[in-house]
Structures are given as structure tokens and as C-alpha cells.
């Protein structure tokens, strides 16, 4: 039962949505299933957010209670959750500090703590890409050389002074050839476009195949069954 029921549920869920796609929602019940299910999914989605909060609280409280390594950080996580969530849930009519409008505790914490922290973590990518490029962009073989040259051209193309440099190179060395336009046409809208389409098609087929295997019960490793 533990194996059969999830497989049946997976099959029915997928099959119903596929069948519903091909029927007119204005004329048939089958066609309306899709829109009904999506409304239910929105409702259930809201509850999974709640489930996420409950799980985070449970996991972090357990770490604090058992004094696991780094438990202070778990305590800080718990405090952060409640300090942000509770004032946001209280009615604005009680105080301007409540709710999630401008001037509230939630709004202040979001824009003065969360916002800059997330932007800072993302900004670290600039440093990491520089070190990764320094290490990886070496002309070891023809493919690596092609990667190196293309990356350099695109990096130059994306900045104004680089673009000006490329135009100057085109004018002086390539008889007026418009290099930036060529990069846009042949690299971005040519090679890049073709490769992206190929990967997208392959990935879509892979996802469809995996979905079909899940529906048919062939792929069951996600349930813990090999």
C-alpha cells in the first residue's frame, strides 16, 4: 500500500491534468478541471508556506534545545522569524508599526536588513566570476580558446568603452566592419540562440520523459524506493 497508493495518486494527478488540457472548459467538466485544480493549488500553496514556517521553527528549536554546534545562530533565526512575522500579521489599525505597509517594523527590517544582505551576497558573484575567469579562461586547446575569445568579445561588447574600442578596431583594422553589430548578430542572435534552443529542447524532453516515468511508476527513487 505504501508504494502503490503514491504511484496511483501520481498517475491520476498527471493524467487528469493532461486530459483536461485537450477539452473545452466552456463545454465540458474535463476542461474545467484544470482551472479548478489550479485554484485548489493556490490555496494549498498558501498552506505549504505555513508548513515551511512550522518546519523551520521545529528544526531550529530542536537545535537550540539540544544545544547543537552553532545553536546561537539557530536562536537568532527563530527570533528573526517571529520579530518579522508577528508585527506584520497584526492589524495596521492598532499601530503604524504593524502590518507590512511603509513605516512598519516589517517594512523597515526588510529594506534595512534583508534587502542589503541579499544584494551583498549577490554582489559577491562579481569577485567569484573574476577568480573563476582567471582560472578557467586559459587557451589550453581549441575549444577553450574559442570560449576565451567569445567571452572576451561579449564582455567588451556589454560596456560602452569596450564597444567604442571594438568600433575603433573595426574601423582601423577591418575596413570599417561593425564589430559590435556582428557580435549581436552572429554570437548572441546566432550561435548563442541556437545553442540555447538546443539545450531548452533537450531539457524539456528530459523533463517530459522524467514526468512520464514518474506517472507510470517507473521512476520511484524520489519516494525512497529504488
Amino acid at each position, binding site marked *: 500500500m505504501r508504494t502503490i497508493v503514491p504511484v496511483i495518486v501520481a498517475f491520476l494527478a498527471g493524467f487528469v491534468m493532461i486530459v483536461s488540457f485537450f477539452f473545452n472548459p466552456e463545454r465540458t467538466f474535463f476542461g474545467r478541471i*484544470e*482551472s479548478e485544480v*489550479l*485554484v485548489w*493549488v*493556490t490555496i*494549498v*500553496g*498558501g498552506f*505549504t*508556506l505555513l508548513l515551511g514556517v512550522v518546519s523551520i521553527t521545529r528544526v531550529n528549536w530542536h537545535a537550540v534545545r539540544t544545544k547543537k554546534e552553532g545553536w546561537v545562530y539557530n536562536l537568532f533565526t527563530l527570533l528573526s522569524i517571529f520579530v518579522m512575522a508577528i508585527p506584520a500579521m497584526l492589524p495596521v489599525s492598532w499601530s503604524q508599526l504593524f502590518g*507590512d*505597509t*511603509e513605516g512598519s517594523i516589517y*517594512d523597515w527590517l*526588510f*529594506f534595512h536588513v*534583508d*534587502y542589503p544582505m*541579499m*544584494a551583498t*551576497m*549577490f*554582489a559577491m558573484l*562579481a*569577485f567569484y*566570476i*573574476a*577568480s573563476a*575567469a*582567471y*582560472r578557467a*579562461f*586559459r*587557451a*589550453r586547446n581549441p575549444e577553450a580558446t574559442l570560449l*576565451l575569445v567569445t*567571452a*572576451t568579445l561579449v*564582455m*567588451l561588447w*556589454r*560596456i*560602452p*568603452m*569596450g*564597444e*567604442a574600442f571594438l568600433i575603433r578596431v573595426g574601423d582601423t583594422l577591418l575596413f570599417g566592419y561593425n564589430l*559590435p553589430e556582428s557580435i*549581436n548578430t552572429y554570437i*548572441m*542572435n546566432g550561435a*548563442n*540562440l541556437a545553442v*540555447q*534552443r538546443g539545450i*531548452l529542447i533537450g531539457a524539456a524532453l528530459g523533463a517530459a520523459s522524467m514526468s512520464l516515468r514518474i506517472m507510470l511508476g517507473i521512476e520511484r527513487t524520489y519516494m525512497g524506493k529504488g
Partner: protein
Amino acid sequence: MNFWDKLGTLDRRWIYLLVALSVIFPLIVPMSFKISITPEARQLFEAVDALPDSSVVMLTFDYYPSTVAETEPMATAALHHLFRKDCKVVTMTTIPLGGPSMAERVTRTVARKYNKVYGTDFVNLGYKANWVAVLKGMGTSIEAIYPADNSGTRLSELPLMATVKNYDDVSFIFVVADNDIVQNWVSIVNAQYGTPIGAGVTAVGAPKYYAFVGSGQLTGLLGGMKGAAEYELLADARGLAEKGMGMQSLAHLVIILMVIVGNIAFFAGRWSKKGKVK
């Protein structure tokens, strides 16, 4: 280990220092550059510009706070453009982490400059869980998915939403995103309802969407801070993106320089080893 080997395996902290200096320098010595417009950015601008005044445009804030440097200038420039044209703007987001707050803050800041009234000229629908259900559901009825706006006011009480029931009443969708949601806007909304969609995405995601522009599924594309700067220039709403181009330019040049140095070290190291072997 000779000099070239040491140069080839340079401690990454020196590289981080150089990048940091390249970003800090333009803050001290402001730099400005002539920004050229890519065909994709021009296509997006012209598509929005060609909309009749008072058209309803849906502007999505589908980005996390981490990418604000690239995406928020796009949203800001788009709002300037739309409000100047007297377009009605309906904002929404599929990002639970701060999406509604950012939409609220950015839209109201720009709206104040044009004396736009909330409820009549613009509405913030906020966030609802499960983007598939939201994107599909709005094709039938926006009110079914969003019974109330972000601040809890029922849609029936907002004059703008009396005339905007579903995608048929929306002339254009301007998606500003830092994730795959653009693909879903295209496959769910553009493919099934025919509403034209333009996108502003991060530089990392932009190469993927050239395929959609090429096939006509996307009407224009802005890529990264450069794309935001282009739109600011076109919409005459110069802002942070244009100022940020100085930093981006220097950072790119530093990376290119490091790549050149790395390759010199690589080849010089190889040749010196061959010389020793001989």
C-alpha cells in the same frame, strides 16, 4: 615554482582586491559613457511607446532583492515611460520574499512624480502562491485569483479594476524578472492568450531569452544593467543604471586584463618549462 607559475596560480584575494578597486573608483571619480542601444531594447521601447495612451499595462516585479541593481532600474524606467504616456499600470509579483513591498515602494515613488492616483491610475495586486495557478487563472479572471489588492482593498472597490477583468483587457505585459518566470509568462500567457510580453532580465539570464525574441514570443528584451541603462536613455528617465555603467565597465576591463595576464602566465610558463627540458 618560477615567476610564471606563481602568476598563473595567483592568490584569488589579489583578484578580489582589484575588482573591489575597480568598483570603488567610479564612486570617487564619476564616469559617464555614451550608451548605444541594442535592437532588442529598442524593440521593447518602441512596442511600449506605440501603445495608445491610457492603455492598461501589467508590470511584474518578479525579482528578488538580491538583483535590484540590475532589475529595479528597469522597473523604474518602465514606470516613468508608462506614467508619462498616461498608461494605467497594474503591478503584481510572483516573488513572496519582498516582491509586494518592492512593487509598492517603487511604484508609489514614481507615481508621486506624475501625480498618479492609486486605484485609478495604478493598482498593486501583490503576491499569490503558486505562479502556475496565478498566470493561468488571470487569463480567465484576475479577481478570482486576487479578490483584493496588496493592501486588502477589494478589487471591486478600485475604479481601474472595473475595466480590467483578465488578459483581454491588458494591452502589454512588461515582465521584470531575475528567474525563469519569463519562460512561463511566454508559454502560459503569450502562447495561450496572445498578450504581447516584453522582458527585462538579469545579464545572466538574457542569453537564454534571445531565442524567444527571435521567435517573436517576446517583444523586446533588456539584459542586465546595460539593458536598464538603455531603457533609461530611451525613456528619458536617467537613473542608477546609467551611473552604474562606470563601475561595470571598469570591472569588465579588470576581468579581461586578468584573463590576458593568466594566459600570458600560462604560455610563458609552458615555454620556460620546454626551454629547461631542452
